[in-house]
């Protein structure tokens, strides 16, 4: 095979074409993946809808039902507190001497 490029003008033309083709090839990739991304988003949403619908039909839920569910959830969540271990222990501690609780001082004060 022989090169057809023989002059500077050929080089310039081919360079412009070259960079354009690189842009076109990668732009096609951009378009393809923007569309594929959108299709995937749509499919994920649709699958989610189908899954949740199959479990329970929310269209039949009245406002009263919704209010009751919300209240129940609220009460359940607000009354939650840390889980206790359920083990009771009596820890013996040695009482330290303190003049504030001394019986002698208290008796003197009454006199």
């Amino acid at each position: 095979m022989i090169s057809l490029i023989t002059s500077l003008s050929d080089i310039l033309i081919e360079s412009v074409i070259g960079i354009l083709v690189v842009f076109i090839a990668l732009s096609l990739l951009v378009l393809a993946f923007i569309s594929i991304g959108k299709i995937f988003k749509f499919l994920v949403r649709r699958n989610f809808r189908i899954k949740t619908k199959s479990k329970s039909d929310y269209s039949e839920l009245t406002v009263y039902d919704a209010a009751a569910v919300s209240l129940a959830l609220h009460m359940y969540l607000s009354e939650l507190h840390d889980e206790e271990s359920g083990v009771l222990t009596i820890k013996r501690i040695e009482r330290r001497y303190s003049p504030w609780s001394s019986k002698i001082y208290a008796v003197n004060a009454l006199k």
Partner: protein
Amino acid sequence: MKSFISKKIFILLAISLLTFHMLAQTNPIEVKTVTLENSLIRFWNNTGFANLEWSYFLMIIIGIVFIYLGIKKKWEPLLLVPIGFGILIGNIPFMEGYQIGIYENGSVMNTLYSGVIKGWYPPLIFLGIGAMTDFSALISNPKLILLGAAAQLGIFLTFIGAYLLGFTPDQSGAIGIIGGADGPTAIFLSSKLAPELMGAIAIAAYSYMALVPLIQPPIMKLLTNKKERLIRMRPPRSVSKKEKVIFSIVGLLLTTFISPSALPLLGFLFFGNLLKESGVTERLADTARYALINTITILLGLTVGASTQADVFLTIDSLKIFALGAFSFGIATAGGVLFAKFMNLFLSDRNKVNPLIGSAGVSAVPDSARVSQEMGLREDKNNHLLMHAMGPNVAGVIGSAVAAGILLSMLKS
């Protein structure tokens, strides 16, 4: 005392070497009778000392510098150490005719070099790169692919520049690809278009790739203002396995239908990626990303280094190639950064692109992405750009392979 003895030994050695050299000069090798003197002269003529010229010595120093930069400075050690050692191997002076040199048919080095000359090492490297690369960053924000295209501007401007400096169109195309900042692509294209310049082109490409942390930051800073460098990008969305599998198939079809000449590179790149993403060929992906790419990197680095034999490598053309390579890297970096700024003109505030990631479009995975990250952190300690920069970075690999295919089809049709 010890140093005195070692000095004496050194002087004796130098005197005996000089005597041998003078004897060999006065008595040509065409001596048929076997005498002690003739045997010694014949032995001397076969040694590297007798055949040493300043150019070989210079190349050996360059090889040592490469090894030093790889080990001490840790600049692309996986490339610079094998290439540097290859330079040493290729520049040990020897008598021709013993099938030792890389350019002597049938020699061990020549056989290993066939992977470079015939261009089958680069696709195997691409297979490994494909098996290592996660294209999620690119798939989650596809518009970043365009930055990988913009950075290929360096290739085509260098193509013009090389022609103006007196290279033939084929040679100009091979030199231009240095701007792709992709060693295997540069070797692949130069093996097809200008095998005589391959050593210089490969060394220039790999050297500048190692110097990416030095070349890019000043250009990036010059072309952006503080406000642009502080732009925070939206975090990328998560990408499903299915999307990644589709990417490797659609990516191959779209790019190679436009540029079939890039098939050896892109075919292997996307195949390697499919092995990784399919999840059912983990063993093959593992071999591609570790054993295979490591083996080929050793052979490629060593043989490319050895191909820089002083008498072939030290020419004015090599100097021109090095100058054009630097120009090419600069233009490629600027192209990516400026295109990111151009894209921002059309993007909403939420979707703005930090122009610092534009420079990552020059390929050089992952060094140029790392440079974007470091530059970003220098301006704002909490602005991590690495994940965003990986998008244009891997797009640059695809872009430079497409550009190589285009140059090949333009120049060889």
